[in-house]
Structures are given as C-alpha cells and as structure tokens.
C-alpha cells in the first residue's frame, strides 16, 4: 500500500513540475526569494541559511441565517505572505527556544503581511523586500540572544538540531474556485433556519454556509515550488438555550465537503434540526449529574475529539523537545502507552473516509514537506511522533506535519488522526458490556457521551498534566433496565496516561469528526476517525455554569410561535 502511494506521488510530481515553473505567482516569489537570499546568506554576523515564502490566497464566503433572515453575508478576498528566515545553522538557529523567557510571547504574536490579491508582481515584491529585511534583522537579534543564553544555561535535554533537511518539491495544481449560487443558498438557509421559529425557548439558532477557498504557494531555498489549492464547504446548524438554573446549553452539527453536491440535502438537514431541537428540549430539563467515576462509552465522534485533545496534542513533536513541556510520551518510544488492540496513525493524505470528506487533508505542509502517513502507535506501542522540520531526539526528519494558520509560526500539528482497533464489537455489545461492567463495579448506571464540543489539555510542565473535555450530550444507562436518561452539567476530567489504560474495547462503528483545532500555530483544519470506545473508568466533574436566569419575558409571539411557551 505504502509503496503504491509513493509511486503515485512520484507520477504527480513528474506531471506537474513544468507547470510549477510557469506559474506567475510562484515565479514572482521565486525571483524575490533568490534576490534576497543572495544577499542575506552573506550578511554577517549571522547569515541566513534558509528562506521561505508562503503566499496564501484566500476567499471566504459566509452566509448565516437565523429565524428565516440573513444575519451575516460576506465574500472576502485576501492574500498574505508568511516569511520564514533562519540564520545561524541548522544545528542552532534563531528559532531555538529561549529558556530565560518562558512566555517569549512576542515571538508568538501573529505577523501578517497582506499582499495584493491581483497577483501584481511589483506590489508583492516591494512588500516582500521590506518585510524580509525586517524578519531577517529580527532573526539576527534573536539569534544573538540565543547565543548569549547558551553561555549561562545548562544544556537542553534534547540536543537535536533546530532544522532538518527536506527534499525539494515541485508541485502545482489548478486553483479551486468557489462555485455556488449564492442567492439560492440564501433562500435555502432562510427556509431551513425557519425550522427553529416555533421554538421560543431556543435563544440562539442559525444555519450557515461557509465556503473557504485557499491556495498556498510555497517557495524556499531548498528549491521547492508548491502550489496547493483547497476548497471546503461547511454547513453548520447551531442551537442554544438555557436551563432554568442558568446553565448555557447548546448543540451543533457541521457537515464538511469538498464540493457543494456532497453536502446533505434539505430533508437530511431538516431532520437533523429536529433532532437538535428535540435533544435541547430534553437537555433543558435534564437532571444534573453528580461527580462520578465509573464505566462509560464515548460514541465514535466524541471519541475522535477525545483522542484528538488528550492523545493527539501529546504526540506533536515540538512538545517532546520544549523544556517547558510535560513530555508525557517523550521517553516512551517502543513502550506500551495504549491498550494492545489500539493503533493510531495520522494521515493527512487521506481525502475521504466512508465517502465523508476529511477536513484535515492536505498534500504538503507549511514547510514544503509532503504529508506522510505516520504510524504513531502500533498495537499499543509508541512508534513515532508528528514532526515538523524541527527534529527531536531519535527522529531527525519531518513527516509533513508542520502546520500553521497564516501569520503564525509553524509547529507540528495533527491532520487526520485515525484510531484503529483490533478489538471491535457491535455497538449493542459495547452497550451490554458497559452494563455488565457497571454491575461488576456495583454502579447503578454508566454514561454514554454522544457529543463533545472540544476541550483543553495542559501539556506544559508548569501546570498539572490534566485534561478537560466538554460533553454536549450525555445519557445515563441504568443497570436495572430503566430507560436511558439524558443528563447535563458534566465535564470529563482526568490525566492522560491513566485514562488510556482504561480503554477496554471498541465498537466497529467508525465515524469522522471534522473540525478546526486552535493551538500555538493558530487554527488549522483537522479530522479524527474513531470507533466508539468503552472505558472501564472515567471521571466527570460538575461543569461551571452561568449565574444568569433564562429570559424573564417569553419570546415575542410570531405566526409559528403563538406565544404560549416560556
């Protein structure tokens, strides 16, 4: 399989390299890069040894409708360039962590350089010139600081170089353009958002469409010239209300597709809206859960989010290297960190799964490295990390996971995280196992987490190695055969190593979570594929809640909501 893929990608490269050389935008970047590097690579005291321009052409079209009327409607075009200049040497350069300044926050302030959207070469070059000069001087300044710090600090634990070599890549594909009938979408969204209108107790609702077209042009002194275009449509449904005790409650559902035809039809969306309404309605009066430790099931997509937050962020390469990180897994290579029936890989080259487009798909990362399938865990054993071009001990090369939002510094990030199980069973069996485990533990009930909005995970050394994920929809499964009960007001908390050891088995119901992930290098599109998982023990605590009461007056009356509901 791997061999085949390599051959395919070679063919792609061969057929597109001529085109890459002719692309106007790539040519503009290349000319200025060559001119700049010729000087900067000889400018003392710390000459540049690497320079990269990444130009982003972005178009974002957004339509948002609520209660049958358009609230947001825009179509913006922008272009930006990120300049990465490295001075010193690959062994030690200006990107090296400064240990004397834990926050070092100035270096994380986004640096956006807007450039012409009409591809005017004179405008682009003029901006590149002055900003490259500025970036180069800042790099020299930071490098001097790093050299000075080396004199007074102890040696880092991981003495890997700051930058790894990567092969030159030539790749160019055609620009993907947004192609929808905006007016008919406005009408469609308005008709769909009307479904919420009879529900006066829903305090916020919307149906929206976001179309993002993004073409990235990368040119660097490795000789790479890359033009990759991405076009994604995201249809989202959102509904929010408040429980009588002031707890904010919301549910949402998103569909991501690489073509508008692949988005669900009106009937499917309308049915989903009804489900959301029905679930919110139950949630509103659902009892609060008391803090609990016991067996639970995380439904497939919820499990995807769980793995992304708790596991995925801990296998990002830079977290193994930074002296400020907790390094949960750094020294555990070739050791068992997950149950032996679970394998995890991250493969951004996957474009779809079970006919669902994968939001985390890309071909080349933001450092010009081809995305690779990385087997992170093989049957429970830690094998690899997600790597950018910042090497870590024992892993000297990038595997194409250096990612960022424009304006940010690259770090290693997830793309398409795939949780694969060798101990699968049907969901019904999984549920039965949950009940049996509850009996064994003398619990009256277990929990099923159907939907998780996201979470936080502390990976830093300064804090505690804990995580918290925010479930949106949870049911209690009773041992004595009582019907399932919707509950609310819990967050899942825990420590990662312990939590993973409690996974007993999984379902066979793999599904995709598509979303956006925010971290040091900004927001990037991601996916997680997972079956439902059964854990023998999970800890939940009470969710923080708002103190405001629900609205004092009932919703204004309308034709569809004659005003009896409060």
């Amino acid at each position: 399989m791997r061999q085949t893929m390599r051959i395919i990608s070679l063919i792609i490269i061969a057929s597109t390299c001529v085109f890459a050389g002719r692309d106007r935008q790539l040519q503009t970047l290349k000319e200025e890069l060559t001119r700049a590097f010729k000087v900067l690579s000889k400018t003392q005291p710390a000459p540049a040894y690497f320079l990269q321009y990444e130009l982003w052409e972005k178009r974002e079209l957004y339509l948002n409708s609520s209660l049958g009327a358009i609230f947001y409607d825009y179509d913006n075009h922008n272009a930006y360039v990120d300049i990465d200049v490295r001075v010193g040497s690959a062994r030690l350069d200006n990107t090296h962590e400064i240990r004397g300044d834990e926050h070092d926050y100035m270096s994380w302030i986004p640096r956006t350089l807007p450039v012409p959207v009409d591809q005017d070469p004179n405008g682009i070059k003029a901006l590149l010139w002055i900003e490259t000069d500025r970036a180069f001087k800042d790099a020299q300044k930071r490098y001097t600081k790093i050299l000075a710090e080396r004199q007074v600090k102890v040696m880092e634990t991981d003495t890997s170089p700051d930058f790894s070599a990567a092969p030159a890549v030539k790749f160019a594909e055609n620009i993907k353009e947004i192609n929808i009938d905006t007016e008919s979408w406005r009408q469609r969204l308005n008709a769909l958002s009307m479904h919420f209108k009879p529900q006066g107790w829903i305090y916020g609702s919307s149906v929206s469409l976001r179309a993002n077209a993004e073409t990235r042009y990368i040119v660097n002194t490795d000789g790479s010239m890359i033009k990759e275009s991405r076009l994604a449509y995201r249809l989202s449904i959102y509904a929010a209300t408040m429980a009588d005790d002031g707890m904010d409650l919301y549910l949402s559902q998103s569909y991501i597709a690489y073509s508008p035809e692949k988005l669900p039809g009106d009937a499917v969306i309308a049915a989903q809206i009804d489900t959301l309404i029905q679930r919110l309605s139950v949630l509103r009066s659902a009892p609060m859960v008391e803090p609990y430790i016991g067996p639970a099931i995380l439904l497939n997509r919820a499990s995807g989010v769980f793995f992304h937050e708790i596991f995925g962020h801990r296998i990002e390469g830079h977290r193994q290297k930074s002296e400020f990180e907790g390094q949960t897994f750094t020294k555990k290579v070739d050791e068992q960190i997950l149950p032996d029936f679970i394998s995890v890989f991250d493969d951004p080259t996957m474009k779809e799964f079970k006919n669902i487009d994968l939001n985390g798909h890309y071909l080349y990362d933001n450092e010009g490295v081809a995305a690779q399938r990385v087997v992170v865990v093989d049957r429970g054993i830690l094998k690899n990390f997600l790597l950018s071009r910042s090497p870590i001990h024992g892993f000297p090369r990038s595997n194409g996971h250096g990612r960022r939002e424009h304006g940010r510094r690259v770090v290693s990030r997830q793309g398409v995280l795939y949780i694969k199980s060798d101990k699968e069973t049907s969901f019904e069996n999984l549920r039965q196992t949950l009940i049996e485990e509850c009996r064994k533990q003398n619990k009256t009930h277990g929990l099923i987490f159907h939907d998780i909005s996201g979470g936080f995970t502390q990976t830093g050394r300064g804090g505690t190695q804990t995580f918290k994920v925010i479930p949106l929809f949870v049911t209690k499964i009773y041992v004595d055969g009582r019907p399932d009960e919707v509950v609310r007001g819990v967050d899942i908390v825990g420590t990662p190593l312990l939590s993973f050891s409690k996974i007993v088995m999984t379902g066979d119901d793999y599904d995709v979570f598509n979303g956006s992930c925010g971290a040091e290098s900004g927001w990037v599109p991601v996916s997680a594929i997972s079956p439902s998982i059964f854990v023998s023990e999970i800890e939940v605590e009470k969710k923080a809640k708002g103190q405001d009461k629900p609205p004092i007056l009932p919703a204004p009356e309308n034709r569809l909501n004659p005003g009896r509901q409060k």
Partner: protein
Amino acid sequence: MKKILLLIVLAAVGNAGDNEDHILFKALADEMNRNIDQLQIDNQPKPYYLSYRVNDIEGVEIKAVFGGLLQKNPYRQRVLYADLRVGDYDLDNSNFACQVGSSSTIDADQINLPLEDDYDAIRNAVWLVTDGTYKKALERLSRKRATLQNRPQNDRSADFSLAEPCTIVEPIAVMDIDIEYWQNAAVELSTIFRRFPKIQESGVKFVAQTNNQYFLDNERNRNRHARTIAGIEVDARTQSRDGDPLEDIIVFYACRAGDLPSLNEMKQAVAAMAETLSLLAGTTKEEEYSGPVIFAGQAAAELIFQVLGKGVSDPKAPLFENDILAQAGANKGMAHLVSRYGRKVMPDFLSAWDDPGLRTWKNTSLVGSFSVDDQGVEAQRVNIVTNGKLTGLMMSRTPSSKIKTSNGHARFRNERYARRSIGMIGNLIVESRQSVSFEDLKEHGLNLCREYGLPHIMIVSRLAPARPLSTKERYMRYFTRGGSTETTLLSAPVIAYKIDTLGNISLTRGLEFCSVTNRLLRDVAAAGDQDYVYNCIYYDEEGNNYPVSVVAPALLIDEMELVPKDPKPSHLPVFAHPYFVK
C-alpha cells in the same frame, strides 16, 4: 468620469410618515413597549430608561500598494445598541468601569440584527439583548453602589440628564459607490510611489460608508438620521540616512465620494508628500529648538483638535471599580481643559465653536457633521471659547460638575471595561477677530526671533495624527491590561521647516514638543487669515474611530520648546528595493 456615479446618493424613500411603518422601527417599538411594561425581576427595580440605537452600515474598503490591489471587501452590518438604565437619573448603572461576565447564550448591550427587514427575527434579537442588558444593568448598579461606599467619586454629579425629544427623520442614505472607479483610483495613486526610490513602504486606502441610524427610547425620542463618509488615506514610510524612521500620511475625506478632490489633485498631493518625505530622508537631525512656531494647514487644525477639541471632550470620567481598572482607564488624552471652564484658555481675539449640524464650510463638506447624536439628541451649536474664555464643553446626557445637560455631542465609545456615550467634538471651528496674511504671520514670527536673538523661526505644516493600533500594539495593550498609549498633549511634527531671518527655508526633522501644557493656546500670538478645513478620522486607543472636522487658521505661538525625539533608529535595509534595482 460620470460624476453622478460617484455620489453616495441621499435618496428619499418617502416622507416622514413611512418612519412609523418601517418594519425595523415597528419591531423596536413593539419590543420596547413590552419590555418597559413587563420587564422586571422580583424585588429588583424596573428599567427607568431604555433606548435602542441601530446602525445600519454599508461600506467598502479598498487598499492598494505600489500598483497592486491589496483588498476590495464590501461589508454590511446592522448592529443594535441597547442602553438600559436601572436606578434613577441621579444614580444608575452607567458611567462605571467594571468587569461583568456574561452568558454565552444571551447577548448584552449590543447584538447583530438581520440584514433583511424581517419583523420576527428583529424582534426576537431585541427581546434577547434587552433581557441580557437588563441583568447586566442590575449587576452593574449593585456593584457601583458598593464601590461608591469605598471609592468616593470626584465628580458626583448625576448620572443622566433629561433631554428634549428629537423626532428628526432624514431620508435613508443609499450606498452608491462606483467600486471599479475607486479601485482604479487607489491603484493609480499607489503607483505614484514607483517614482520615489527613497520611499520604503507606502499604501493607499479608500473607504466609503453609509450609516443610517435609527433611534428610539421610552422618552418620546424617535429619529432616523443618515451619515455618509468617503475618503482616501495615503501613507508612506522610510528611514533617514542614520536609520531614524520617518513616516507621513495624508488624508482626503468628504461626506460623499463625489466631493473628494479630483484624482489629479490627489495625485499631485501624493507626489508632493512622497517628494517631501524623500527630501526629509536626506536631512540631518535637528538638535533642539526654542522659539516662535507657526502651525499652518493640517498642523494648525491638528493642534486645535488635540489641545482644544480633545481638551473639552469627555468631561466626566467614569467611576472605576478598582485601582487596576482605574490605571488602565486613566489618561485617555481628553478632558484636560475641563478644569479651566470659565477661565481664559486662548487670547481675546480667538473664539471657537462646535456645530455638528453644519454640513459645509465655505463649500467644503464637513465629515464631523451629524444632525442627531448617538443618544438620539439633536446636535446643537456650542460656543466653546468666547473671546478667549472657555464657555462650553462637549456634552452627552452624562452631566458633569460644570454643565448639566446634553448639547447633542454624544459619541458612543466602547472601552475595555465600560461602554459610554461621551461628549466629543463634531465640527470644531476656530475664528479670529484679528487675522493677518501668512506672509505677515511669518514676518511677525521673524520679528520675535530678532527680538529673542534667534536665528530662525519654525513652521510646522503637518502634525502626526492618531493612527489605529498595529497588531503588535494591540497585543501589547492586551498584555498590559490596556493602559493608554497617548502620553503627550501634542503629537510630534511630521513636516516642519526652519526659515531664517534672510528668508532661507530648510526642512527639519527629529524633534518633538516638550513641556506642552493646557495653557499652550494662551500663547497664540497671531492668527492667519486663511481657514484650513481638516476632515479626518480620529482613531482612539480603544479601537473606536470618529469622523471629525476642524477648521482653523494658521497660528503663531510665541515660544515653544522642541527636543530631540527618542530616535529608535534601526539599520537601513541590507539590500535594495526590488523595483529600483536595474
């Protein structure tokens, strides 16, 4: 070029009667009535005042750099601002800076309305924001009462004043901008910099906006009013030979795009600016200067704005809940003349007044115009300085110890820890009873030089205006909890000349004013006989911006001290500009 296309047409869509029928007004009124009647939490006060202000805004921003089109993004939004007050006119929840958390489901204070006139959707949003605002108002009032027990407020005048109801209904302004034309104009203007190799960076921005404001409150105010603005900003940056940063900006603003100077005129002005900046880069730094200074053109107007205009604005500071907030909120660069109310602030021959109702000054449109302010009060003419004496302040409905009632100058200001409607200038006019020609003004200055035994006089033709914060500055502000960045009363000269007693002119750079106090304008020795009409946008450090107009003659100040500016030099670029390398 068809001029008609360039106009933001003020098209009447009917008579005043349609105001009543307008779906937006109807939804606002119906929901307001219901809330005033019924909104109350048990054992808590009902609102005593409620207003809704809707700004229906449509605009476009076009940017160009060095011949390339950077951005062309139209936008549209309709935002409702609710002002809900509990307590009474004497003590309510307003004028108080504190951190109040809010529900993630229900908005407070402001909310986006649908872009379409959908009665139900509008009313639903109004219902929710009124509810959220009411709860916040109750919380703010109780915390304000607690704070007042521990922190006495200097100015404990009432919190809110009564105002005459205003029922002005203006025609709705319709956005009608020839985007193609202005895109080309911006690109053409930006291309001018291809002739100036010494300029390192430059940019052109065209903006146009229509803002139809709907206002309704429970005190019989019900008005609609339209504001339009269009303008071009051109900025350029370079460095002196010794690495000091040099920057200049010129702005052209008018109420309508068609009233802007012709493209040719703007091109000439941009070329002149680029030329001067290029020359400036070649000059050496001035050591210091002490002596007479003439402020001419933009510099005179900017001086008047910074010292007089801001000095009489925002006369009452809010109460801060604690010292940290007080520190972050202090020194907004305003109100420094308030304590001199009733006293001399200028020489006898100068007077100043502000009249937002004025649309033009000698055929030039004034962008600081508005007929109704942000609290729905009809704008009034205010005599700020009468024969040298400070007789007026810019008042919103927030009374101060000096003046108790609004004069229709309220402008909404979103601050990090408070949302306030502050009194601020609109169209500020300075008039002189004694005026002399510019030549005579110069001669007057040179005579002073001879008297003081000085070799030359200084003429400042451009003062640095306030600029929006950069990304980096915004982050720094965030990390430092939002302290003010404005530290001096008067910004530094951008373009200044020396003229010696023989009439030789030379450009100077690298100086800033020192020891400027609120007494500065008393030292005006003479005024010129030509008015300069300055239309600009004032960007405050909280991220708000306000169109203002200042009309002022050239002013000669007896004696001022200028010292070297903190230079912040950086190395010159290590390689050459790509366009000028052949």
